[in-house]
């Protein structure tokens, strides 16, 4: 009797764990099935090469490139903000700060990642853009610069925390060897610690990239809704995520072509993040073996 009960319980537990697999299958199935219908009507070549994205207009174009460029532009701005700051924090915390300070600052920085993104969107639109417009008068009210900067602030803890872990995982003996040669902490950090922790730092940057690409509300609020193939950070753009929000807010008929565009956009986004996550996964695995 007891044995049967144990078996049943284990079965239930396993079933709940398998829900996570079902989720993945569900995501891929939903994205694929709707996109496949979409690609029956729109050629995949047009989708990947047309430079205009106007599915909601009378003159319809289905080129994803403008959405990709908007996404990458905001992401690059975000990374250029968060990488130097995050890496500096990581070095400071692992090489300079006393242990007590480190214990205090790390959770404090996590607050940056805990703030709801819609709040950051407000910040970008209502505070950062007006401030930047004073410096750059020709800047538009919606632009990728403000959105990118604010997104960068949000992902600082992603980079600082994972990079700090990577630096702390470097064997202490390397640090001592460098100090023993008369190197300063700064020299030790940049000439020994960062190269030795490089794979972990790269992982942190890739994950931050993936996070920024998938970020939605900041760009939906502050970057605009104008798909545009541009690298100009001062004008409105639209990201993949912002487009999905735009369509979701509107009155689009289910089973229409317009409706399926969000799945085509979604699968593009999913492919990007999936590749990035797996690269980071692969590097991490390799890196772990290195130090074992």
């Amino acid at each position, binding site marked *: 009797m*007891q044995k049967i009960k*144990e078996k049943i319980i*284990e079965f239930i*537990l396993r079933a*709940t*764990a398998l*829900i*996570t*697999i079902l*989720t*993945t299958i*569900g*995501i891929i199935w*939903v994205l694929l099935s709707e996109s496949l219908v979409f690609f029956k009507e729109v050629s995949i070549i047009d989708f990947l090469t047309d430079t205009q994205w106007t599915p909601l207009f009378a003159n319809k174009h289905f080129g994803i490139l403008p959405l990709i460029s908007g996404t990458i532009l905001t992401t690059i701005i975000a990374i250029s903000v968060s990488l*130097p*700051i*995050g890496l*500096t*924090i990581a*070095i*400071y*915390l692992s090489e*300079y700060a006393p242990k007590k300070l480190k214990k205090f600052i790390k959770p404090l*920085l996590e*607050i*940056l990642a*805990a*703030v*709801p*993104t*819609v*709040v950051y*969107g*407000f*910040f970008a639109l*209502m*505070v950062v853009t007006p401030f930047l417009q004073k410096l750059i008068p020709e800047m538009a009210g919606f632009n990728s610069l403000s959105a990118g900067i604010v997104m960068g*602030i949000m992902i*600082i803890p992603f980079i600082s925390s994972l990079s700090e872990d990577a630096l702390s995982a470097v064997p202490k003996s390397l640090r001592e060897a460098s100090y023993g040669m008369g190197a*300063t902490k*700064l*020299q030790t950090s940049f000439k020994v610690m960062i190269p030795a922790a490089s794979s972990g730092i790269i992982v942190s940057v890739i994950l931050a990239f*993936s996070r920024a*690409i*998938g*970020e*939605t509300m900041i760009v*939906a609020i502050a970057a605009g809704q104008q798909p545009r193939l541009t690298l100009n950070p001062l004008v409105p753009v639209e990201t993949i*995520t912002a487009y*999905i*929000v735009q369509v979701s807010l509107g009155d689009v008929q289910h089973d229409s072509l317009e409706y399926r565009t*969000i*799945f085509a956009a*979604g699968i593009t*986004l*999913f492919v990007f*993040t999936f590749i990035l*996550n*797996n690269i980071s*996964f692969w590097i991490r695995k390799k890196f772990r073996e290195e130090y074992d």
Partner: protein
Amino acid sequence: MTNGEKNRLKDSIFKYIGVFACSIGLILLAIFIGNIIYDGFNRIDWSFLTSLPSRKAEKAGILTAWSGSLWIVIFTFIIAVPIGISAGVYLEEYNRKNKLTRLLEINISNLAGVPSIIYGLLGLEIFVRLSNLGSSVLAGSFTLALLILPIIIVATREALKAVPSSIRAASFGLGATKWQTTWYQVLPAASGGILTGVILAISRAVGETAPLIVVGALAYVPFTPKGPMDEFTVLPIQIFNWVSRPQHEFAINAAAAIIILLAITFTMNGIAVYFRNKWQKKINW
């Protein structure tokens, strides 16, 4: 200046840069929160909390928004927490190092990296349309539950890992079965850590906007949900809606609503950190 002096100078300058980098993000956040409190604090009063949305900014309130958030949080909790803890227990306690476990592990870390808006698309197709739930509280809760599942599973595993194996050995030694050991000994010992993870996950769900927009949560709902099958809006969507309007009065409403949302988020995170510290002290026996 000798090279040594230069290096020492650079070194001490970097120390200040490090302090600056640590504080810049927090300082900006503080400025911003100060700004929002300045804008919105006076807008918060009883009628703001108890009024329905309105075309007129000064009459509009967040009643539907916070009650919608409450409905969503309760149902997300009911769905995600048992499944998440159970899956975590399976992976940590019943883990036989086989292919299935490895696949589950890789899969969960991949799911944690899927953008939240993709979960919205999943929810839209599976719950809203195929399951015929419509854009209801239940559809939104299922969607968010899947989104926070990886967080709860990972937190559960971490908490179980911290429980010393001597506890398990002692229980097995008394003839307890695996499940009895897990249920009566291991889970109670890990409860503090699990609780922390659950609170953080729920706090994440409270702040989520994009997936709920995609499953069709409305920007304007003139009533509060009466049941799980009703349509709904949530606090972050209400904020988004107000931010998107050009009139300044709505921005003030948004600021006021943000104060409420941040108060909820920070309180939950604070409680989570409190439990974590308390529990970590206890687990170091």
